[in-house]
């Protein structure tokens, strides 16, 4: 919901922007750093004195670019946190001159800074992608700001923060309100503005939607130095129009399993068969290990800016694991951040949205609460051991006990032709038994007195 609500904020709302801009002047600064990558020589420069990131989304922090600098397609923001945490990140790119949001991006990331290094700044860093339409950068005033917001356990441990634009060949110049002229690049350390409150959207229905979750399982086992496997995954975008389609899809992969070497290289990409014939959309990925479990966060972005026209796609998430021994690696959860329409969710109700008031009234009257049904779940537990239901429970448990791994009372010696004769014959017997029982069952259904 939050993700899509951010996405829906592309529209203008000047009247609400001005009060919110007052948050510019609510300094909550503590010591931290900015690491800024020079796009020309790909070296990183650490900027001290960046604002702190507090532990909620109420104080967005960021920096801005001064007027006249051509910043197009700011595509990736890197962050580093000296603690292991899952964080929600929101990014806003704002045209300050015209007081409007150009682009919004958000994501869910697992971060730490176990291998922070200025020489290899990408190791174990987290990032999220953030796109700006090309036309904005070329046509309009580009006194723009980029602001990020963090949530969930980040605290004040954000140490590094920089952005990267692979397609940009010019030198980035960053304005500093505090005149940090002693660095090669000027940097802004002012608190950023928070833009999400009260901004109207052209797609308010998105706010009524909630996330959908889908699951799939993939299991590989054995030992190998390189394993490649694909996950076929249905991605349903048929519910979306061009206006409501999300800017990017967040696919979270949660995997149980053991990778003997935690430094293994895991390549991931999302293959989208598109109607225009293109596929193999390489995705941005991030991964981490927690207690031997592998967690990946895959972001496929620019769905809108790429002007895609697919509706329902069979997505393949492709993994290639190399550099370590893979043993029993199982994808236990694969979810996406797509929204689905929830018809039972309350709508906005106001004078201009009177329709929502009627819908809300009907929902209030006729849609039962989930708790109403959940109260039934514990009823059977109370009587499952009481007569007459207890007889069923006792017999069921006794029969299940027959399947348990009780030590065999005897063991047969090796049977000749076991694999060639007896195993196939046993398979035939299993099929035969079920077929005979099915016929018996059907004849009995025919005679059943209902």
């Amino acid at each position, binding site marked *: 919901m939050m993700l899509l609500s951010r996405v829906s904020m592309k529209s203008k709302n000047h009247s609400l922007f001005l009060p919110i801009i007052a948050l510019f002047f609510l300094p909550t600064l503590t010591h931290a750093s900015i690491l800024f990558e020079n796009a020309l020589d790909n070296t990183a420069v650490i900027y001290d004195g960046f604002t702190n990131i507090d532990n909620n989304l109420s104080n967005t922090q960021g920096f801005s670019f001064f007027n006249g600098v051509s910043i197009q397609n700011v595509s990736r923001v890197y962050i580093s946190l000296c603690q292991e945490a899952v964080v929600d990140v929101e990014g806003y790119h704002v045209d300050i001159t015209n007081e409007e949001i150009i682009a919004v991006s958000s994501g869910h990331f697992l971060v730490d800074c176990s291998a922070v290094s200025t020489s290899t700044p990408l190791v174990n860093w987290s990032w999220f992608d953030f796109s700006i339409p090309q036309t904005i950068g070329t046509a309009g005033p580009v006194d723009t700001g980029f602001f990020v917001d963090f949530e969930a356990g980040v605290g004040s441990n954000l140490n590094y923060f920089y952005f990267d634009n692979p397609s940009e060949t010019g030198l980035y110049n960053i304005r500093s309100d505090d005149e940090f002229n002693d660095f090669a690049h000027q940097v802004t350390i002012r608190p950023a503005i928070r833009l999400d409150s009260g901004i109207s959207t052209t797609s308010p229905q998105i706010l009524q939607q909630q996330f959908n979750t889908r699951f799939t399982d993939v299991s590989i086992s054995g030992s190998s130095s390189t394993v490649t496997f694909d996950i076929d995954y249905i991605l349903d975008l048929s519910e979306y129009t061009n206006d409501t389609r999300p800017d990017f899809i967040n696919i979270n992969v949660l995997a149980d399993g053991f990778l003997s070497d935690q430094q293994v290289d895991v390549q991931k990409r999302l293959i989208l068969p598109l109607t225009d014939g293109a596929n193999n959309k390489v995705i941005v990925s991030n991964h981490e290990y927690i207690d031997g479990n592998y967690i990946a966060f895959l972001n496929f972005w620019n769905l809108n800016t790429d002007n895609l026209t697919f509706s329902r796609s069979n997505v393949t998430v492709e993994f290639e694991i190399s550099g370590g021994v893979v043993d029993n690696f199982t994808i236990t959860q694969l979810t996406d951040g797509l929204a689905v329409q929830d018809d039972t969710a309350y709508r906005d109700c106001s004078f201009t949205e009177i329709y929502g008031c009627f819908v809300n009234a009907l929902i209030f009257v006729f849609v*039962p609460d989930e708790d109403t049904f959940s109260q039934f779940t514990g*009823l059977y537990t109370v*009587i499952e051991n*009481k007569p007459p239901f207890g007889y069923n429970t006792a017999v069921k448990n006794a*029969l299940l*006990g027959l399947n348990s791994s009780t030590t065999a009372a005897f063991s047969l010696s090796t049977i000749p032709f076991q694999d060639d004769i*007896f195993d196939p014959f046993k398979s035939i017997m299993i099929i035969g*038994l079920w077929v005979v029982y099915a016929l018996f069952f059907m004849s009995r259904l025919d005679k*059943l007195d209902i």
Partner: protein
Amino acid sequence: MIFDYIIGIIYNIIAFIVNLIAVLDDVTLPADIENSLNSVSGYINGITTIFPILTLLDILFFELLFIGAYFFYKLVRWTYQKIPFIN
């Protein structure tokens, strides 16, 4: 809200019956039956290499499940027919 009240009434009726049944003692199988089943289990594991006896158990389990469900259906139907003016 309306459905909440309707479902709440149904829940309270069922909960009342359940609480009456809950007063009864727990059902336990006689110890001899449990011992015999444990003994059988050891032989089943030995013979399963050449005969799919676990399949037979699955079928038996499914059959008992069906019988139990049918019995429960008859019980509910019998109770339902005891309501006045319902045949």
